[in-house]
């Protein structure tokens, strides 16, 4: 016991200082000091790492589950629902109208999700209030045309393998900024493994630098 404490004492600048200054000779106090330090450090560090994100983001369930796999089997690739309009703008989330090219208020399958869709939205002709994971703030102008047509990129490089999703994960919203968590990325440290793990400006700039040799002018992506 005391051995450890001695070690502590010698190991510690404070201790040394104390010694010379002839401060209180109570080693326990000093040991406690360090223990308190470590405990406090761990608690705060861990809560900052693990608890903080829980508080920062609010979880929101989508109106109902959407099965991308099923739909892409039925209607083909992404463009059949998320297409470019003739003026070059991007249609984004399909409107009820385009869903109803196939769907009626009579469900075609057995899933309860489709039932919800049929009753709550098709029958009532209400647009589905989807939460958009990749929603960018109002100050951002993003041209899908430039990336898909001109640069020939695929959806995955930014949106990830979403076509493989059979159910909709909950949407996480930053309580302070109102941003989708996907912008900052799942990792609170902002670490990314895949190109689609984070959608902050620097990520756009990085890719632009690589692909075009220029990180891009502000107005290219801001309005």
């Amino acid at each position, binding site marked *: 016991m005391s051995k450890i404490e001695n070690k502590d004492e010698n190991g510690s600048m404070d201790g040394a200082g104390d010694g010379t200054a002839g401060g209180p000779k109570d080693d326990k106090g000093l040991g406690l000091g360090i223990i308190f330090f470590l405990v406090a450090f761990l608690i705060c560090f861990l809560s900052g790492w693990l608890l903080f994100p829980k508080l920062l983001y609010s979880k929101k369930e989508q109106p109902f589950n959407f099965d991308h796999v099923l739909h892409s089997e039925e209607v083909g690739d992404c463009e059949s629902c998320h297409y470019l309009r003739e003026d070059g703008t991007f249609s984004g989330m399909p409107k009820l109208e385009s869903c109803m090219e196939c769907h009626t208020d009579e469900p075609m399958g057995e899933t309860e999700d489709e039932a919800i869709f049929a009753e709550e939205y098709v029958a009532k002709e209400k647009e589905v209030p989807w939460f958009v994971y990749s929603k960018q703030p109002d100050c951002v102008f993003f041209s899908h045309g430039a990336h898909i047509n001109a640069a020939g990129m695929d959806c995955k490089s930014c949106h990830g393998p979403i076509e493989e999703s059979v159910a909709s994960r909950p949407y996480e919203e930053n309580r302070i900024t109102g941003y989708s968590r996907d912008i900052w990325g799942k990792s609170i440290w902002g670490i990314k493994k895949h190109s689609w793990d984070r959608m902050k400006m620097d990520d756009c700039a990085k890719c632009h630098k690589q692909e075009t040799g220029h990180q891009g002018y502000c*107005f290219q992506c*801001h309005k």
Partner: protein
Amino acid sequence: MIHDKKAHKFGMVIDLDKCTGCGSCMVSCMSENNVPFKEDESRKKDSITWMRVYKLTNGKSFPDTEVVYMPRPCQHCGGKGDHGHSPCVSVCPATATEYGHDTGIVSQIYTRCFGCRYCMGACPYHARYFNWWDPEWPEGMENYLSPNVSPRMRGVVEKCSFCYHRYQAAKDKAYYEERETIEENEYQTACATACPAGAITFGDLNNPSHKVHQIVKPDPHPDPMNKDVVGKSRNPKIFRLLERLGTNPKVYYLSEREWVRKAGDNYLDGEWDKVKNHHGSSSHE
């Protein structure tokens, strides 16, 4: 990407003899760019009008008085020698305003700006405006706001963007139709399209096929009298505001009246008569 093929240099020429001071350009700009309004807009020093129409008089007394109206958007200066160091761009501490070398357009990013207002001090044209108040619309009126230009929050600077979003739209269409370039008429600013007198001509100063180039005939060589000045018009009837400062605006003005052209800049006594007929050398036609 399209703009990398060849650098554009968007600019405009305004025929002051045609301008009637009707104000269409101002309102078209405000409505296109979600510019807010407040109860008292008669205090012009805190009234946001990206496009402002000045009223100039020749200072003569009745009945020899003459009046001309001068619309003043952001001049999108190229800075000394037209290298892109505009008065405002070079001073912004946070890179919230930037010179687009691909378009010659000076951007303003409201979400980056933190409101130090240095750029406003640096701009001699008063083309930059600060949001002293939070924008507020009467109940329901926010329904007419356009999604192409994001509304500004209190505490940031804003200014004319040459309707950059219209350039974006034109490019988007071009991408869709897999075209390399956009047509002259595909990208026109809101003021130019609105002007009932057709006084505003907008286009690419670098593109000889564009009207604005043909009217202005910009001289690509530095002015022998002032090396900072580049792109002087070869048309003696065309001038730029405060050209001598070397800000190199991309907005040109056209007038048959000498006093108007003189009012465009500052001259020492007798100096005007020496320089009035000096213009971009025609040798480089």
